[in-house]
C-alpha cells in the first residue's frame, strides 16, 4: 500500500460517523511515597503504561525489592488479570537471567482503594537500552548480555512461554554485567489453553521490536519464533549500532517491518562478524519458519566460535 493510499484511508476513516469515546476505568494516582502493605517505598524508578515501579524495602524480610504497583486503569479487571497473570508466570520461573518474583497481592490504600502489586528482585544497574546508547560500551560486552538474554528466553521457551515484548528496555544489567530479563506483562503460555488477554500492554514504547506477525495482528501465528525476531533486532542493534527498521512514526516503522529487508549490519558498521550477521538476518526473516526455531538454537549459534 502506498503512502498516498494510507493517508487517504486515515483521512476517510476520520470522516465517517464519529462514535462517542467509550468511558475508561477511573485512574488510580500513583501512591505517594509511603507504604504499600509491608513495603516501604523509597523512590519511583519507572513509570510504564499501567504500572509504576518503586524501589522499596520489604520490612518483613529486610530486603530491597522492586515493587510494581498497578496504577493506570486500576479499576479495570483486565488490567488486574494481566498483572496477576504476569505474577503467576514470573513466580514459577527460577533462572539467574530472569528477574525473580517474591510476592504478589493487594492491599487497601488510605482512600480505601485496592492497590495491586508484585514484589520482584531489585536489580541495581542499567538497562540494555541505556548501554546501547553508549558508544564506549564494547560490542563483546553487549553480546555477552544478549547471550544471557537468549539463555533466559530459551528457558522460557522450554516451558512453553513466549515473552512477546523483548526489547532492550526490558533487559536489566546488574553491576557484574549480567543481563536479566524483566517484565512479563505480555508473556503468554504458548499453549492455546491459556486465557487471552491480548492487547493488554503496559509499557509505552515503540513498535521497533515487533515481529511482522505481531504487526499484522496474526496472534495465532505468535510463538517462540516471535521472540527470536526481537532477539534478532537486538543483535542487529549491537552489530550495527542502529535499529534495523527506523522511522519517524509508528506507521512508517510498521511498514518497513512488513516490506523492507534490513540492510546488512556490515553495510553500516565496520568489522561485523559474518557468522553473527548471518544469524541476525536469519532471525529477522519475515517468514517465521526461516528463523531459528527457538532461543536455545539462537543462543547456541550466538556462542559458537
Amino acid at each position, binding site marked *: *500500500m502506498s*503512502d498516498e*493510499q*494510507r*493517508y487517504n*484511508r*486515515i*483521512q*476517510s*476513516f*476520520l*470522516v*465517517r*460517523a*464519529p*462514535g*462517542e*469515546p*467509550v468511558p*475508561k476505568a477511573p485512574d488510580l494516582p500513583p501512591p505517594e511515597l509511603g507504604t504499600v502493605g509491608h513495603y516501604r517505598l523509597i523512590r519511583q524508578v519507572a513509570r510504564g*503504561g*499501567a504500572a509504576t515501579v518503586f524501589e522499596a524495602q520489604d520490612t518483613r524480610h529486610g530486603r530491597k525489592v522492586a515493587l510494581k504497583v498497578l496504577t*493506570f*486503569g486500576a479499576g*479495570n479487571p*483486565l*488490567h488486574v488479570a*494481566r498483572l496477576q497473570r504476569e505474577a503467576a508466570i514470573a513466580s514459577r520461573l527460577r533462572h539467574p537471567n530472569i528477574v525473580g518474583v517474591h510476592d504478589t497481592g493487594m492491599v487497601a490504600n488510605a482512600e480505601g482503594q485496592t492497590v495491586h502489586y508484585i514484589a520482584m528482585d531489585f536489580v541495581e544497574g542499567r538497562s540494555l537500552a541505556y548501554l546501547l546508547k553508549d558508544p564506549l560500551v564494547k560490542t563483546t560486552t553487549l553480546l555477552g548480555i544478549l547471550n544471557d538474554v537468549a539463555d533466559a528466553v530459551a528457558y522460557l521457551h522450554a516451558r512453553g512461554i513466549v515473552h512477546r515484548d523483548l526489547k532492550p528496555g526490558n533487559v536489566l544489567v546488574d553491576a557484574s554485567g549480567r543481563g536479566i530479563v524483566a517484565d512479563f506483562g505480555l508473556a503468554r503460555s504458548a499453549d492455546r489453553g491459556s486465557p487471552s488477554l*491480548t*492487547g*493488554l*500492554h*503496559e*509499557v*509505552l*514504547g515503540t*513498535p521497533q521490536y515487533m515481529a511482522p506477525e505481531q*504487526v*499484522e*495482528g*496474526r*496472534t*495465532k501465528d505468535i510463538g517462540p519464533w516471535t521472540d527470536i525476531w526481537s532477539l534478532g533486532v537486538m543483535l542487529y542493534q549491537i552489530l550495527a549500532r542502529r535499529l534495523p527498521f*527506523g*522511522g*519517524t*512514526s*509508528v*506507521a*512508517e516503522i*510498521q*511498514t*518497513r517491518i*512488513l516490506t523492507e529487508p534490513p540492510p546488512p549490519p556490515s553495510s553500516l558498521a565496520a568489522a561485523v562478524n559474518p557468522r553473527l550477521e548471518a544469524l541476525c538476518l536469519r532471525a529477522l526473516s519475515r517468514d517465521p519458519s526461516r528463523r531459528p526455531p527457538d532461543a536455545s538454537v539462537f543462543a547456541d549459534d550466538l556462542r559458537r566460535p
Partner: protein
Amino acid sequence: MPQTRGLLDQLVRRYWKPVYIYIRAAWRKPNEEAKDLTQAFFTHLLEGTFFSRLKPEKGNFRAYLKKALRNFLIDAERFDKVRRPEKPIVSLDIAMDQADLAPPAPGEAPEAAYDRAWFRCLLDGAVDGLWQFLSLEGRLKYFEVFSLYCLHPITSPDGFRPGSGETATQPTYRDVAQTLSLTEAEVRHYLEFCRAHLRRILSERIREYAATDDEVKEELKQIIGE
C-alpha cells in the same frame, strides 16, 4: 500559538518535514543540501526572535512558518551564506537520518507540497498518539484493528490483498474480523473507539500551534473536509 521554548522545540521535531519538502520542491536541492538548509532554518528561528514575534493576530502558524521559510530562503540565496550550523539541532539530525525522505512529487507546487507534508505529519503524529494512548489504556488490540483497517494491507490465505494495488479496496469489517478472529460487531466497536480518539488527538495536536478554536476547526476542515 506556541509560547514556550519546550513547545517550540517539539514543533520543530514534528514539523521539520514540510520545511524540508518545501526546500526540495522550491529550490530543487538534493537531499543532503536540503537537510543542511532545514537545519539552518530551524537553528536560525530558534536562535532568533521569530518565535517571540509570533502573535495570534498574524494568523495561521503553519502559513506563518511557511512565509518565514520563504524569506529565509530568499535571504540565503541573496547572500549565499547558508551553511550547516556549527551546532545543529541533534534531535533533528536523528529524525532526518531515520526518516523516509522521498523527494516531492514531480510538478507539485512547493506551497502545496509543504501543506500536504504538514497534514501528513499531523496524521502520523495523531496515529502515534493513538498508539501511545491505546498502550496506556491496555488496548493494543484496538490498534491492531485500526492498523489492519487503515495502515496495512490484509493478506488472505490465497494471497489476495484487499487493500493493495492501484485499484485497492478498503478492507471490510469482515476482512479484519476474520484476520483477527473477532466478530464484525467487535471490529465496528473497536474502530468507533479508535476514530473518536484519533479525532481527539488530532485536534489536540493542532491546538498546540493554533491560536483559536476557529483555527483548529479550519485546520481540521482542510484535513478531513468537515
